[in-house]
């Protein structure tokens, strides 16, 4: 068990204001399936938090409960998910976006039919120049390429780049490490952390891979069956133990 860290996590100052307050959030799908059932957590300004859990633990439902469901999905959301005091639980993605929440989903995270350049043009809210160099320099030489032809890692970078350019207050990233080579994951996470710190963006990274996530985050939540079963600072040694207990062996 090697517990190497990428960067020493700067734990946020205790008096940092809470940015996201989730209180007894429950997500129920139209077929009766429960995504999460009464989850509560807090993310402070500029804090990096990871949410760990197995497949089906409710991680994606939690993120979407905050980032919004389309009305057509007929999902029932109860409880509260307030961003800077304004409730977005059960809102549309549009409303959450207006409050500064951006979700980078696990699958289909880029527009396969658009080029990288067009993705950058799409991200308009930051009023920044689209010619400005990318936070992920690798993307700059890929600008003319169709996103559908990019590798998994490049897609992940592009999705994050689009998110950054919209100046989020809270960025939600669903399983960024999934399907990437370990080297690529390490690089991506370092960059993600650096940029989030530079821009003081709060971040929730949902992961199955605890070793990756605990090195990225300041604090961690472990969820199981749609409920929080453990929370604490990610540098606590017990974090890894607890995570291993709920995520299974080998992680």
């Amino acid at each position, binding site marked *: 068990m090697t517990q190497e860290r990428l960067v020493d996590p700067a734990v946020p100052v205790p008096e940092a204001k809470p940015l996201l307050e989730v209180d007894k959030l429950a997500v129920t*799908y139209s077929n*009766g*399936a429960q*995504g999460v059932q009464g989850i509560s957590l807090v993310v402070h300004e500029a804090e990096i938090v990871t949410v760990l859990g197995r497949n*089906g633990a409710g991680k*994606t439902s939690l993120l979407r409960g905050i980032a919004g469901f*389309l009305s057509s999905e007929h*999902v029932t959301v109860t409880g509260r998910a307030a961003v800077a005091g304004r409730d977005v639980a059960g809102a549309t993605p549009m409303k959450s976006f207006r409050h500064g929440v951006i979700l980078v*989903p696990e699958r*289909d995270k880029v527009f396969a039919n658009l080029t990288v350049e067009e993705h950058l043009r799409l991200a308009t809210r930051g009023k920044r120049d689209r010619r400005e160099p990318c936070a992920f320099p690798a993307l700059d030489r890929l600008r003319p390429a169709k996103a559908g032809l990019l590798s998994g890692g490049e897609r992940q970078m592009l999705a994050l780049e689009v998110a950054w350019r919209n100046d989020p207050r809270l960025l939600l990233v669903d399983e960024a490490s999934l399907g990437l080579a370990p080297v690529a994951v390490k690089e991506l996470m370092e960059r993600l952390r650096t940029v989030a710190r530079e821009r003081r963006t709060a971040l929730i990274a949902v992961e199955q891979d605890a070793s990756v996530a605990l090195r990225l985050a300041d604090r961690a939540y472990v969820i199981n069956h749609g409920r929080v079963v453990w929370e604490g600072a990610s540098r606590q040694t017990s974090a890894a133990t607890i995570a291993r207990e709920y995520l299974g062996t080998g992680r």
Partner: protein
Amino acid sequence: MTGSRGEPSVVLAGHEQRPSPVARSRRSRLPPTLAGTVVFVVAAVAIFFGGSDNVLYQSVLIAIYAIVTVSQEWLFGRAGLISLGPAAIMAVGAFTTAQLSTQGWAVFPVPILVSFVFGGIVGLLIGIPGLRFSGLYLMLTTLALQFIVTFAGQKYQGLDHLAGFTVNPPQWGSLELGTPQALFVISTVILGLILLALHAIYRAVPGRVWNAMRQDEAAASVLGVNLVRWKLTAFVGSSALTAVGGSLYAYQAAQVTYSSYSLDLSLALVVMVFIGGVGTLTGPILGAVVIVLLPVGVQQLAGTLSGTGDVAAWLTLHQAIIANAVYGLVLLLVLLFERDGIFGLLRSLGRLAVSLGRTAVRR
């Protein structure tokens, strides 16, 4: 739209019918199935003994359309598919019946049975290419079928049979079955049998499989459901039954011509199923009632207004168009506000009445 829908669960053992408040109430009542059967039989007997020839004629039409709409609901409500060519499949049954009715060996029920088989075969031929990909493609394939059948019917009739083919009335030995009374008995009995059969199928394993498929195709396929085969089964079955409807339609009209089985009829049938209510057997029957009675209603309205001259004349001239406008509007309202159609509306009203009644009794 793509993307994960969270963590879906598919319950294969689930039952497709929603629990009705009637069934849940403490006083024991007739189970819905038995109640439905009683209503059906009582209505049929009442119409048979009490109805004039015209009422019988309209009732036969309703029964025939109900056969077709119920089999289309099999597609929409169970398999999540759509066909734009029910009239074309009806034409298959109708032309088959017209040809066989003149053959001495094909005594009465034979043409209907052959129509059933031919309808199924056409369903198979159209369904195999149509279902290779998705429901969208079945929609376009059945649209093509509609054009092709119309064309083939036109060519088949040629110049020799411009007005179509005559259908000899059904006979059973010396028993004449072409009378309105006999046709009424035949069509209601067939409709009743089809309803019982479908009811049994929907409650058994196939119904649950279709239900699971509609809830989540990916999950159903993970559980080992062969999606294409189950969809094809539904399409072939519903085509066979639709052709039976076409066969009866031929007997009723005593004549078959391609122009009766137009795209307009196809679309009207599809619309009616939705207006009546998808997801139950009663809904499509209500749809069939509407399809037959709405034009009659407009006509009646014109009749009562005959004193007012212009309005009545306008209504008479435009009755088909007015009926269309009503269909279109009601369909949109149904899809937007009451997905279960007229059936759902009646059910809600029924519940309201029951709860009001109960409060009144308690006081």
